[in-house]
């Protein structure tokens, strides 16, 4: 429905505003910066595998800052031209089949996003991670043949998050994310994000594949694959206007 891929990737993790020690802050900022500039343009593939179906989509997306993003479906043909716009707290969907734009209500936030294992709410929420968690390094050293740093993110008392904690592993040297595990309040694993497919994107080596497995359905997954990524592209704010949605339709 709506896909602001860059925001998803970057803000899932961290931000520069962590009120923690300098080193933690620095590394998390680096991770955060991996996919995000002041603005971005990307083409990505989304693969969803469930018990009932598997599907592949190609998406094109633009973002500016944290609050604005626009995602358009390129493939398959059946959904081509579907556009999702996130502007601040508002989410709009343009449906080419009906030629109508719909604003999503709060009640829809918990719906599955694009048939994947993420909810609409996940995408909105993650942009607030930095305000919601305290981070600290809980492990440094070798694990699974790699030198890693493990961060544990604990939600702040007031934070509107459902997780008990988030554990993030990054490569010790390049500070590239390896794995991010979400725990529920009883500290049971709820879902796991794995980052692979290192390749050069926007002039730097970054993971290009994000693989999400829900703990309660281990046979299913959702996967994002970056095909291209350009950071800091010039985009007008008006690009993200609701009234501009129809214009994007080609």
């Amino acid at each position, binding site marked *: 429905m709506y896909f602001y891929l860059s925001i998803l990737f970057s803000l899932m993790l961290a931000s520069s505003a962590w009120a923690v020690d300098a080193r933690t802050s620095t590394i998390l900022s680096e991770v955060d910066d991996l996919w995000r500039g002041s603005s971005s343009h990307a083409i990505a593939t989304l693969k969803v595998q469930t018990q009932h179906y598997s599907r592949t989509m190609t998406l094109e997306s633009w973002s500016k800052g944290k609050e604005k993003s626009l995602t358009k479906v390129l493939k398959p043909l059946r959904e081509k031209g579907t556009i999702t716009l996130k502007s601040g*707290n508002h989410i709009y969907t343009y449906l080419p089949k009906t030629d109508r734009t719909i604003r999503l209500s*709060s009640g829809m936030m918990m719906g599955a996003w694009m048939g994947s294992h993420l909810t609409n709410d996940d995408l909105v929420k993650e942009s607030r991670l930095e305000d919601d968690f305290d981070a600290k390094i809980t492990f440094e050293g070798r694990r699974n043949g790699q030198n890693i740093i493990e961060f544990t993110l604990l939600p702040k008392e007031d934070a*509107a998050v459902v997780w008990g904690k988030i554990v993030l592993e990054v490569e010790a040297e390049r500070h590239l994310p390896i794995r991010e595990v979400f725990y529920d309040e009883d500290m049971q694993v709820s879902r796991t994000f794995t980052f692979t497919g290192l390749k050069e994107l926007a002039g730097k080596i970054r993971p290009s594949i994000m693989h999400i497995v829900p703990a309660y359905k281990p046979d299913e997954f959702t996967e994002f694959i970056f095909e291209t990524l350009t950071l800091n592209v010039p985009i007008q704010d008006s690009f993200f206007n609701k009234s501009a949605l129809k214009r994007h339709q080609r």
Partner: protein
Amino acid sequence: MKLNQLAFRNIFRRKRRTFITAFSVAFGVMLSVTFTGTGDYTYTNMIDTGAKMGMGHVTIEPLEYQNKPTLDKRLQKTNEILQQTRALDAIASAVPRIMGQAMFASANKNVGGAFIAINPELESANNNLFIKSLVEGKMFTSDSKRGIVVGSKLAKKLRLKLGKKLVYTTTDVHGEIISHIARVTGIFHAGVDAIDGNMVLMPLKSTQHALGYTADEVSLIAVLIHDQRQANLARDLIRTLPSVQGYAVLSWHETQPDLAGMIAMDKSMNYISQILVGLLIAAGIFNTMLMGVLERKHEFGMMMAVGLSPSTLFRLVMVECFWLALLGLMLGIIITAPWYYFLYHYGIDLSAGMGNDFTYGGVLIDPLFKARLFPESIMFILGSVFTLAMLAGAYPAWKAGRTPPIESLKTI
């Protein structure tokens, strides 16, 4: 010798007939008390319970809130309205509330539901059903930022326990989507799935803050009154207050049309039943009175022979009927009192023998067959049974006066 005295002696002489007639009347009292009493109890119980589930007997709310209860509609002079409302005699309590829809999420699941934001200082088990049915934990305090009391079914769905957190997502006053965290301080079990699986209570102050309301803004004011039957009166009274001008003031009939309809249906059933029972009682009294008159044909004939006029005879029988009815009422009170006492205090448990999974928990439908009478109802019952007895006695009395004396004398 006065008719009264004569009637009295007749009543005492024919003890069996007197007893049977009085018993018919007494039974009428008992039946009416049972029917009316259970009705009075059940309706009051349902109405009060309904009122305690959020809207009160009388609701002060923004115009159009009834049709489309969205969070952008709100009352703005809450304190002023509260002050003026509480000054009215009929009002038991008036409490500010915010009611809205929200999504509730835990790490496990998310579900849609509704919240009621309350000020726990103003609310208690007496005016809030949810507080009454709290089964675990306790109510949050009025200053609580994150306290939340959830329904048992909702807690189960989200796998929540006391102290666990819950994220609610809703739309604030500007139409923006907002999310906040809350921690479970208590769990209530009202016994109705639609409520236990949907409802949460939240602190008014923090909810106002979260939604962008000022401290003087709420969705509605729920007014509870001492006697639910005065709801429309109270509503009209409140409507005249200067502070509520521009707002809607509705009684429970309007805010809970389903309940009002159901009660109306049940009441109409009860009326019909009562009419039938009334007919039965009248038949019983008529029967005994008529038999009594037929039996005494000879006596009446002789009285008429010595000069008693038909109208005097009619009066005599009516006076007897009057005392019989009065006696019956007294007997009725005597036999009904323990029965009523039993129904009042214990009731008959209708849920017994109906399986263990049957938990009503006092909401909407009480599994107890209980009775409670309004003082007016008592007067009404005694009055109507008495009238019934007198009416049933009228024909036999008339008949007694009409029988030609010669006919009466022949029946020796």
